[in-house]
């Protein structure tokens, strides 16, 4: 599979000093755009993807041949209306869809980086992304939007570049990764590194893949994206193509078969080392600590208008963690709206067809955009 020909890549010339201390130079950033940038260049929305997302937000992903990860929300007349806005999304550094990551070749050793790749952070990701603004000659984005890890990037972006986004929509996220979040990520990493095919991260040069481990990591994570109620309603104790229990360890239950399927399709499109790096970046995310225990200071003097959303059944990034961001913003008189969306689809709600969510997102963006144009 030659993925390169379908991937737009920008080579970032400006050296980027990472939080770990290393500096990266001339690194690739893979991106995709949707819609048209208007003459005033004031209709651009930078979308940040979540852990396993990529730059192919909507339409058919040319690599996986499946719908883009946010097809429900992004497209003509959708919440993020590509007839109106110019949508940019880039693969995070550390990722595996063309941006600089552990599956790239190390020019010094002529081998793939693997675990020699520097540990990256959410801060590093947005510092890499901001180069897209220069590339498109955009002074100020109309909005920065993202869910889950994408939401963390939204927060970090506004904190790092307070005058580069008119509006910001962090969805189902947190300002500081919780012990539970770290625990689940560690479970995933352990599953990968325990696979003997992982080979200390050098699986590429040994022509093998730790796909069992990566699949287990995905299965475990997938459970955290759903809710108990959602699972119960969708699967209950329904059996998988059989009339009775088989008294063995095959997938008797539909939920087992479903998880196995989720794991197996994931390994076809995702790199195990990238999974290690990106989950690590999430775990290291602590905007509260970065600002000495006071989250409000992360947004000091921000003029950005925020709209934060959480979901009732999301137990991975629960409402309270989203509300903490609202509280920090209100404490400094920032412009922030907030709503908790009723949904039994768990953390995944932001990726799915949840009309209340999609409407709220659309209404916030479209109204803010009109207001913005009236002011100018």
């Amino acid at each position, binding site marked *: 599979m030659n993925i390169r020909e379908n991937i737009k890549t920008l080579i970032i010339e400006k050296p980027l000093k990472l939080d770990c201390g290393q500096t990266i130079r001339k690194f690739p950033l893979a991106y995709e755009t949707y819609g048209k940038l208007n003459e005033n260049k004031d209709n651009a929305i930078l979308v940040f993807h979540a852990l396993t997302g990529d730059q192919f937000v909507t339409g058919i992903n040319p690599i996986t041949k499946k719908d883009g990860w946010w097809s429900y929300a992004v497209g003509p007349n959708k919440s993020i209306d590509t007839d109106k806005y110019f949508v940019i999304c880039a693969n995070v550094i550390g990722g595996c869809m063309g941006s600089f990551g552990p599956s790239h070749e190390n020019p010094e050793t002529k081998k793939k980086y693997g675990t020699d790749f520097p540990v990256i952070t959410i801060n590093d990701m947005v510092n890499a992304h901001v180069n897209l603004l220069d590339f498109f000659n955009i002074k100020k984005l109309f909005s920065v939007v993202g869910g889950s890890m994408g939401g963390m990037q939204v927060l970090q972006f506004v904190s790092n570049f307070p005058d580069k986004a008119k509006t910001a929509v962090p969805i189902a996220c947190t300002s500081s990764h919780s012990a539970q979040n770290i625990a689940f990520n560690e479970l995933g990493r352990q599953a990968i590194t325990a696979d003997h095919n992982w080979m200390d991260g050098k699986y590429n040069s040994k022509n093998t893949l730790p796909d069992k481990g990566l699949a287990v990591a995905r299965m475990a994570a997938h459970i955290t994206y759903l809710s108990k109620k959602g699972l119960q309603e969708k699967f209950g104790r329904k059996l998988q193509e059989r009339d009775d229990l088989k008294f063995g360890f095959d997938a008797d239950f539909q939920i087992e078969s479903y998880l196995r399927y989720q794991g197996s399709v994931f390994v076809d499109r995702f790199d195990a080392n990238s999974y290690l790096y990106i989950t690590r970046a999430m775990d290291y995310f602590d905007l509260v600590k970065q600002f000495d225990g006071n989250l409000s200071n992360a947004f000091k003097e921000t003029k950005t208008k925020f709209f934060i959303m959480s979901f009732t059944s999301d137990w991975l990034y629960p409402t309270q963690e989203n509300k903490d961001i*609202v509280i920090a913003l209100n404490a400094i*008189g920032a412009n922030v709206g907030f*709503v908790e969306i009723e949904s039994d689809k768990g953390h995944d709600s932001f990726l799915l067809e949840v009309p209340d969510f999609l409407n709220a997102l659309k209404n916030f963006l479209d*109204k803010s955009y*009109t207001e913005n144009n009236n002011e100018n």
Partner: protein
Amino acid sequence: MKTEYNFIANIIEKNSTVLDVGCDDGTLMEFLRKNKNVNIRGIEISKEKVQICIAKGLTVIEGNAELDLKQFPKNSFDYVVLGQTLQAFINPEIVIKELLRVGKKAVVTIPNFGNWKVRLDLLFKGTMPITSSLPHEWYNTPNIHMCTIKDFVRFSETINFKIIKSLALINKNISNISKSNIFLKNLFGELGIFLIENK
């Protein structure tokens, strides 16, 4: 639009900052934004109403005045508005204190339980009053702490806040409440509108 919105707008100075507590569908917020050019925010407990506000381009957070006002620092707003909901809180005293901490001044409106129709209802029917502004039965009303205009004035003395302006709404007309006319205003007023601040 509710009749009292005009009178609330008259109290609020142009270009000020306002927080509407229990902003409902944002009608008052829009009205104040348009007519008074205020910088306005809202808090609303109902998700559906918050959604309506967002669709109107208003900045609103989903929340409860008893729990969620504490996130705002002292004197965050020139005015905090509490429209016809004081009676629905478990602890109105805490709410009033919070309003006056968050806002330099507060505008509080109360449906007057001292109104003659309410009094007659109870006197002749012997059942809990149901009127157009108080449409619920006793067992499903959110209004657990009904008070009269007179009660609210006494409340200001008990918990020590200052009433700068007090108005009674009678038949879509507004009039000042004073010590000498409070008996009549409390009898005929449908709604009390109070501008208050800390002593």
